[in-house]
């Protein structure tokens, strides 16, 4: 099984080294790919110094396009599993083995690392909790499945997911929509408990207004998308 860890990175010079080290420690046999999404800091240099694979967007294209570039690379290079680990260091690399286990034993096609499955003590703000509740509800409406942490970007996908997401992946705020399109394609998903640290550096990409936009955009996109035929 060829495994690729994809780190989408936009200005993550403070945390990238730590993330790479974490992956090397807890999932030594996986290859690491940094997709640099037009960073203006030393992100790309650090990735090259660390000797991981590097893909560079010539300009900032957003998280969705960044992940899709990674998925395309994984698919064409013959990987069986791709894992997303954010470059800001909030995803706990200790969970990597349990994240891919359901894929290895054929129990699921997409695995999500959830902050809320056990009380990992993730301190969250009320608006964020409400937002996530809303998305949980939305996913339940459209797929009939309960996902406790639908916006989590800490995920692993197998071959089926790679094929689907390289073909089509939402350009912005992709996490929730991706779950629904995966479910429509008959992919099985599963959550495993993990802990997430607060950001190790940089700043969250989501403010109040963009949080609202996030919810409206995803809802609209999913609702209209449900009228699309399945290819």
């Amino acid at each position, binding site marked *: 099984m060829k495994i690729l860890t994809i780190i989408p990175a936009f200005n993550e010079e403070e945390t990238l080294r730590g993330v790479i080290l974490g992956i090397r420690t807890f999932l030594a046999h996986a290859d690491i790919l940094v997709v640099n999404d037009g960073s203006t800091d030393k992100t790309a240099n650090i990735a090259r110094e660390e000797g991981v694979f590097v893909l560079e967007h*010539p300009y900032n294209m957003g998280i969705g396009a960044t992940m899709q570039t990674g998925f395309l690379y994984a698919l064409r290079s013959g990987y069986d599993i791709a894992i997303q680990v954010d470059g800001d260091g909030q995803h706990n690399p200790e969970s990597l083995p349990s994240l891919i286990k359901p894929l290895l034993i054929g129990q699921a096609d997409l695995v999500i690392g959830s902050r809320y499955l056990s009380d990992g003590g993730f301190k969250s703000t009320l608006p964020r909790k409400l937002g996530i509740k809303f998305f949980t509800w939305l996913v339940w409406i459209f797929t009939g499945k309960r996902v406790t942490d639908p916006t989590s970007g800490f995920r692993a996908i197998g071959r089926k997911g790679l094929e689907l997401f390289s073909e089509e992946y939402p*350009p912005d705020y992709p996490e929730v929509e991706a779950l629904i399109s995966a479910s429509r394609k008959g992919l099985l998903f599963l959550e495993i408990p993990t802990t997430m640290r607060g950001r190790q550096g940089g700043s969250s990409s989501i403010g109040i207004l963009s949080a609202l936009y996030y919810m409206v955009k995803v809802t609209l996109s999913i609702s209209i998308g449900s009228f699309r035929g399945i290819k």
Partner: protein
Amino acid sequence: MSIRLNLAAVIGSAVLLLIILELVRRKYLRERYALIWIVTGGLFLLLSIRVQLLLRISSFLGFSVASNALFFFGILFLLLIVLGVSVITSRLAEKNKTLTQEVVLLKKRIEDLENYGRQR
């Protein structure tokens, strides 16, 4: 409508039509997107030459003043054009994304091949 105003309208629409045709001639505007503009320009010209036509259409539809009909259809038309432009932009954005991703992957492949060549 005064004869002066009418003349201005005719000249105005004729100039618009000429500008559109010139843009197509210089290839600043693709024929595909020019078609709707040529039709628009032609319609403007027709309506300013035959004002009676506008009056008849507006009274048939029940507008109390002919200019209201003109504004109504003008705004409706602009809305449709802008919507069309949004559609074109979305399609371009998608194509642009795909193209960029292909370039990124190709660059990586070239790097790999160069490194492989150097090692041999």
